C-alpha cells in the first residue's frame, strides 16, 4: 500500500498538526510514514505545503503528478497544487478564500474559482470546514474538519480505525482535545466512507 497525500494551505492553518495526527495514527496502526514540512520564514502567512506519504515509501517528497489526493485548506492554494495531480487525483478543497495581502491582481469570486476547479478536475470535493469550525467556536478547528473529510472521502477507515485517529488527536493536540475530536467527526459527513 502507498498513499501520497499532498496538503496545501496558508501558513497558520494547521497543516503540520493535520499531518502529525494522520501520520501518528498511521504509524500506530503499523504503517510506515514520512512527512515533509515547511518551517521557518515561509510559514508567516505564505503558501505552505506538506507531503504525507503512508505505506511503502522511502523518500520524503511526492513526485509531481503523483498525489493520490490533494487536500487544499484554501481555494487559491488548490490551484497551486495541481502540478502534484494526475487525472485520477482526488481534490478535497476547503471553501475558503484568503486574499493574499497587498496584491494588485483581481481575484475572482469564490464561486468562479469553484467553477474553474469543477470544470478541470474530475474528482472534486468542496468542504465547508471554516463554517463547521466556527460552529464549534473557532476557525482553528478547520484542520480537523478537513481531516475528517479526507478520512471519509478516501475511505481511510479501511486502513486506520477511527478510534486510533482519536488516540492520535489526544496525543498530538495540546488544547481543546474534545473540540478537535468533534471537528474530526463533523468532517466525516463529506464522504461516504464508513467510519
Amino acid at each position, binding site marked *: 500500500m502507498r498513499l501520497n497525500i499532498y496538503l496545501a494551505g*496558508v*501558513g*497558520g492553518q494547521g497543516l503540520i498538526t493535520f*499531518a*502529525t495526527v494522520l*501520520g*501518528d495514527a498511521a*504509524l500506530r496502526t503499523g504503517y*510506515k*510514514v*514520512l*512527512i*515533509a*514540512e*515547511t*518551517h*521557518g*520564514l*515561509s*510559514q*508567516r*502567512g*505564505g*503558501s505552505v505545503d506538506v507531503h504525507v506519504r503512508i505505506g*511503502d*515509501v*522511502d*523518500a*520524503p*517528497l511526492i*513526485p*509531481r*503528478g*503523483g498525489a493520490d489526493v490533494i487536500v487544499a485548506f484554501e481555494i*487559491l*492554494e488548490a*490551484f*497551486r497544487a*495541481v*502540478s502534484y*495531480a*494526475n*487525472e485520477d*487525483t482526488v481534490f478535497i478543497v476547503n471553501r475558503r478564500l484568503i*486574499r*493574499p*495581502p*497587498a*496584491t494588485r*491582481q483581481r*481575484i*475572482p469570486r469564490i464561486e468562479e*474559482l469553484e467553477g*474553474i*476547479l469543477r470544470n*478541470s*478536475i474530475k474528482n472534486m470535493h468542496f468542504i465547508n470546514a471554516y463554517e463547521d469550525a*466556527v460552529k464549534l467556536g*473557532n476557525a*482553528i478547528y478547520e484542520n480537523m474538519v478537513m481531516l475528517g473529510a479526507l478520512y471519509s472521502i478516501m475511505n481511510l477507515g479501511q486502513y486506520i480505525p477511527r478510534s486510533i485517529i482519536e488516540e492520535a488527536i489526544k496525543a498530538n493536540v495540546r488544547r481543546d482535545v474534545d473540540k478537535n475530536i468533534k471537528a474530526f467527526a463533523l468532517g466525516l459527513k463529506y464522504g461516504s466512507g464508513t467510519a
Partner: protein
Amino acid sequence: MSDCTVRLMLGNHAIAHGALEAGVAVATGYPGTPSSEIIEYLIDYGREFGVYAEWSSNEKVAFEIAYGAALAGARSITAMKHVGLNVAMDPLMSSAYTGVRGGFVIVTADDPNMWSSQNEQDNRWVGLHAYIPVFEPYDPQSAKDFVKMAIEFSEKHSHPVILRSVTRVSHVRGPVTVCQPAKPRYAEGYVKDPKRHALIPANARALKEELIKRWGIIERSVDELPHMYVEGGRNLIITSGVAFTYTLEAVKNYGVRASILNVVTPVPLPRKTILNAVSNADRVVVVEEGDPVVEQQLKALLYDEGIRVPVLGKAENLFNRVGELTINSVMDGLSKALNIVNPLLSKNPVKIDYTPPPRPPVFCPGCPHAASFYELKISTAKAGVKPIFSGDIGCYSLGINNPFNEQDLLTNMGSSLGLGMGIYHGTHGGEFVVAIIGDSTFFHAGLPALVNAVYNKTPMLVVVLDNRVTAMTGGQPNPTSKVDIGSVAKALGADYVSTVDPFDVKKAQEVISEAINVVRRGGVAVVVMKRGCALEATRLFRGYVVRYYVDENACKACGICYNLIACPALIPLENRKAWIDPYMCVGCSVCAQVCPYNAIRPEGNVKEWLSKWAEM
C-alpha cells in the same frame, strides 16, 4: 531493547535524541532554520536527564562552548544552520588541530532550495577544508543512528565530526526507534595540556603534522562504518544523504536497474568500500544533494587507482546543483545516465486555466514590525530624507515587500550595520543610511558593528526591532530578556538612544524624527522599537486578547489601513471599506490609530491587553 519504542519523530528531534542516547552532556546552538528544533528538544527534554543545554548568543560562541567542553573531556554537540557554521569557522578550523577528548559533534543543517536562507552552501566542503569527517544521514532514523555513531567515532579518534543534515532530513517526520537516554558524560576535571590546547605557532606546526597523520587514520577507519550496499547489477549508483531515498525509490518503483552504494561519510570517502563496489560496475552514477562533493573525490580516487570507468553526475549536468533533489529530478538524471525511459514523464498533467497571485510570507496580524516599518516610512518621508534601508536576517526581512519596500540590502547576520557603513563611505557620505536589525541579530553580530560606527564616527540611524524573542525560528529566548539594548547602546557611546513602543504610533514617529536630526548632524542614533512578537504574546496571554472591528458607517473606504499597514486581518471589501477578520485580529490597535475617521474600535479593554502584552 525493551526500553525502546517506535515514535513518529521530526528529523531534528531524532538528532537530539541520538545525542541523549549517546550520553551527550553539553549542547549548544543558535537558532536557524532548518536546525532550531535540535537544541529546543535538548533544552526541553535533555535538561531533566542532566544535560547542560543552552541557546548561545551566536554560533561562534555556541561552537566554542561545546568545543571547550569536549576539550575538557565531556561529550558535546553544537547545532546550527549551514550559514551559521560560517560564523563558527574560526574555532572550527582550530578544533581539527587540537582534537578533542570527549566526543564532539558539529551539526550543520543545510538548506538546499533556500526555503529560509540567503544561500545554499554545501557544508560538506567544510569537512574537506578543515580535515573533519562528515556523516550524512538520509532520514530521521538514520539521523539518530548517525549521531550516536559520530559521537563514538569522534571520541575514538579524539577528533571533531560534522553531521550534515538538510531540510528534507531535519524537517521530515518519520518512524524512529527511541531508547532511554544515557547518563550524560561530563569530564571529571580539566587536565592542562597547553602544547595541544594553546595554538601558538610552534605548537600549531607540530599539531598540523599530527593532524595529517590522524586524517590518514580517519580515512582508513571510515571503511568500517555501516555503508549500505544494495545489489542490483552492473550499473552502480553512489549516493549520500537524502539522495539515497530517491534513488532507492527509483530502483524499487520506476524501472531503474542498478546497484546502490550509500556512503555514511561523504567526507572522506570510504575508499575500500567504493573500490570494491566499483570493481563490479560498468558505469557509475553519483547522486547527491548540493554540490558534487562525492563526485569530485570519487574521480580523484579512481584516477589515483588507475581505474577507467565512466562517472556521471553533476559535471554532466544530469542532476541539479541549484535547489533540492526531488524524485522527478533524480529520475530525470538517472534516465539520461542509464538510457532508460522515465515513467514519471508519461503521466498526464492536469491543466487548469487560472494562475493565482503569488502568496509570499507576510507580517503576522499584530506584528510590531509592520507598525515600525510604517512609522519609519512616514517619518523619513516627513523629514525629506531618502534613506538606503540596510536590512538584516529575521522576520523583518519581510519589510522588503509591498507596501513597505524598506529592505534595500540584506545579505547575512548583522550586515545591516556593516553594509550600511560601506554604502555611506562608498558614496563619500552621500547617502542617508538606516540600518534595521532585530534584537537577537543585534546581540549576534550587531554589537561589534555598532562599536565600529561609534569608533569610526559613521553617521547612521540604527533601528533595533526588539520583539523580545528570536521570532522567525519559533520564538526562542535571547539576551534581550536580560540585557537592555538601549543601555548597551548608551554605554557604547551612541550619540542618541531612545526606546519606544511601535504601538504608540505618534510617539514612535516623533522619536524617529529626533533621531534623523541627530544623524543629519553627523551622529550615530539608535532607536529601539520595543514590543513583543504577536505570536508569542497571544500564546502567553491568551485570555487577555482584545479585538477590533470596523464601524461600517464610519468607514470612508479610504484604504489607508489595509494599504499602508497590510495586516492580514484587515480585508478590503468589494465597496473598498475595511473589514477585520475577528479570528485573525489580535488587537494591536495600530490600524485604529492610523484611521483618520475613528472607524476602527475595540471590543474590550485595550489598555489592559496592551500593558499585559508589554510584559514580554
